[in-house]
């Protein structure tokens, strides 16, 4: 249990940073390409300014990611020994194919100005982006396989791979990867737009600087125009896959207890299970909603939690947690979509100009308020994914309790968990502080362009 706390704790913190690394890398690559293509200087300024924050997120990502890789061995020794044939292999690919590429070319991206030609710099930028993206791909492949373990057989308690293609590209991999990748970029872009809105609302910076942040706001908005609706579609497809391969997780996320035999299953807006489970004591629902979502017909059958043995599905406390995490994620997804649409409408009406934007206070405040929402949605999504999987570490093949390391001293694990948490809180606060300083200082708009 302690190992679960430690892993959950360190993983939840870690995911914040590569999320931003991927998002910023995407934006930076877009800016550098635009700069080299159009030769317009303001794209170059965008690139240089956001790189500063990217570097911080990358350092945090590396620092918090390496412990995760080692925790598989230190805390989950039996899981690692059993699943190493596939799982270790995939992490090996992640570090060699993706992380090495990203870390090496980062040096050129950050320090390489004037040392390498422009084209080589663009190449380095692209490699950092590709590395970050591939990293997400391999991690999602490994995680999806834990959810839907295809392409393997269990022999004497150990995983033996029979079909690599089936194991890596299992039914969940591509959609989970895309869902996560878009979440990364979308969350980062909403953070950026929120930051820009804050600078514009504050209205103390020079005209050029406000123009710079308004430009960043518009570029991000343009990218979000594509991504925000796409994310909702991806979320729906993810739901379909869970319904097919992990019906117990879906039932938990919906607090859906009894399989509907006649009539459609309702979609619960608010619900609370009875003590000990088995049904809901409180429920406010849209009739036939769940059937429509899952089966695409008003009275399609959706398996309920009572169909699964209690020891094979998440506990009642976990059900509640998964249920509300799921609602938080979905609500934020739609809210961000609405906000993007509002921004697009303002843009179309010609309201996004430096003169007068500071007077649109409510509009700007909505964006500032939305800075943390993408992060909350991503964390909530992971909660649904990981807690909804319980009590299994490899779905229906290995229980979480069977994966933990033997002979671990509880006091030792507790101590290191406390140290990790303390360090992470301190660094998280410092990150916000340094980012704040970078933003207040503003972009350098005068240094010579290389």
């Amino acid at each position, binding site marked *: 249990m302690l190992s679960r706390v430690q892993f959950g704790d360190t993983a939840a913190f870690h995911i914040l940073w590569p999320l931003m690394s991927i998002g910023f890398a995407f934006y930076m690559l877009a800016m550098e390409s635009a700069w080299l293509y159009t030769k317009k200087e303001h794209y170059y300024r965008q690139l240089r300014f956001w790189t500063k924050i990217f570097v911080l997120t990358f350092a945090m990502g590396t620092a918090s990611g390496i412990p995760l890789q080692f925790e598989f061995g230190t805390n989950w020794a039996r899981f*690692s*020994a059993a699943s*190493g044939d596939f799982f270790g*292999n995939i992490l090996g690919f992640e570090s*060699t194919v993706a992380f090495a590429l990203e870390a090496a070319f980062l040096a050129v991206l950050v320090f390489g*100005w004037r040392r390498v030609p422009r084209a080589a710099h663009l190449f380095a930028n692209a490699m950092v982006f590709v590395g970050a993206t591939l990293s997400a791909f391999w991690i999602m492949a490994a995680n999806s396989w834990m959810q839907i373990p295809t392409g393997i057989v269990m022999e004497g308690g150990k995983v033996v791979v029979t079909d690599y293609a089936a194991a890596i590209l299992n039914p969940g991999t591509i959609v989970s990867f895309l869902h996560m990748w878009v979440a990364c970029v979308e969350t980062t872009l909403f953070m950026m737009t929120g930051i820009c809105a804050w600078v514009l609302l504050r209205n103390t910076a020079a005209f050029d600087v406000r123009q710079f942040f308004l430009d960043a706001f518009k570029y991000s908005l343009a990218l979000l125009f594509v991504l925000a609706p796409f994310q909702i579609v991806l979320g729906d497809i993810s739901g379909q896959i869970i319904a097919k391969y992990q019906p117990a997780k879906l039932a938990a996320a919906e607090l859906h207890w009894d399989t509907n035999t006649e009539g459609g299953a309702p979609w619960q807006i608010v619900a609370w299970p009875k003590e000990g489970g088995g049904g809901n004591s409180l429920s406010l629902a849209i009739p036939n909603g769940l059937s429509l979502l899952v089966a695409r017909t008003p009275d399609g059958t959706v398996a309920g939690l009572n169909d699964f043995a209690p020891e094979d599905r998440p506990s009642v406390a976990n059900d509640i947690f998964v249920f509300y995490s799921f609602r938080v994620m979905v609500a934020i997804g739609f809210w961000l979509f609405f906000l993007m649409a509002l921004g697009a409408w303002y843009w179309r009406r010609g309201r996004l100009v430096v003169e007068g934007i500071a007077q649109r206070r409510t509009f700007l405040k909505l964006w500032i308020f939305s800075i943390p929402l993408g992060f909350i949605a991503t964390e909530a999504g992971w909660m649904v994914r990981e807690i909804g999987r319980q009590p299994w570490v490899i779905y229906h093949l290995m229980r979480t309790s069977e994966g933990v390391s033997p002979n671990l001293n509880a006091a030792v694990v507790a101590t290191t968990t406390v140290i990790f948490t303390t360090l992470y809180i301190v660094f998280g606060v410092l990150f916000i502080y340094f980012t704040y300083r*970078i933003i207040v200082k503003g972009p350098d708009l005068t240094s010579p362009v290389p």
Partner: protein
Amino acid sequence: MTITDPTLATIWFGIICFEVALYVLLDGADLGIGMLTLFPQKEEGRSLMMKTVGPIWDANETWLVIAAGTLFGAFPLAYAIILNALYIPVMIILFGLILRAIAFEFHEYSQHKHLWSAVFGWGSLLAVVGQGCAAGGLLSGILVENGQFAGDPFDWITPITIFIAVGIVFSYVVVGYAYLIKKTDYQLHKESFMRVLQAGAATFVAFLAATIFLPEKHYVFFERWTVEPTRSMLFAIAALIAVVGMLLALRTYHRVHPQGLHALSLAVFVLGFLGLVIGVYPYLAPPSLTIFDAAASPTTLRFMLWGIGPLIPIICAYNWYIYRVFKRDLSGEHSEGYRA
């Protein structure tokens, strides 16, 4: 039981050794420089040291991640047992690396530079001590029963561990100094050469003690020194280490070819590491776990060999390119590209 193909396992053992060696050679200098920042000096000196490792430490640390990733893939059982047993040293390494990485970036943006260079130095020291404890714990032996770690989380604390930890700390200091002498105007400072000699002597004594005590602890090591063919190999390596070590000491003392000290210190490292590999092969965790016990299935090893094998030269190639980009002397140069 799965059948393990001995050749494949040996190839993967070689690849992992190569990765670990590269990590030690490259990041050893960064960590050594990190520890050197702890000596009393002006803040500009520390900033120069940090600037020297700035563009490369991240890529160097990657080799640790790669080595861990491939160990997990190729020898999952060893990954599980070793990290399980060395929980505490591994956590020490991780805390050290976290502190170093964060301090590095915050140093750049902060107004309280001395605070962050101190965190950088202590983080580096912590990471190195952790590595020493892990290596020592591994060589001291891990209790394995039924394919699981069966000992206590504090088993790694042995006299051998202490010798090895001390040796690793001082050896990294030597490489760190040699790297600074090569890259910056440290070659003008007389005392840096004296410190290289002192740290080198400490390294020698510590590792010699560990080498003498190891055969006492496990018969495996005793056999390596007494039975052919490893006997002549080990004695040949010991002789080479003596020759190269003497050359290093003499050149340091007389301060000839200061640029070449770095290469010489790396040569000693490579020889020492080679000796270690000959000493432990085919064990991953002597004296209980061999590479053949711990290997993944032959299908996986083959798949990884075709998937990851060709990448390693590619990774080396682009890392080499990046080293060349940043080859120019950094000491006189203003930090264009970082702040602007």
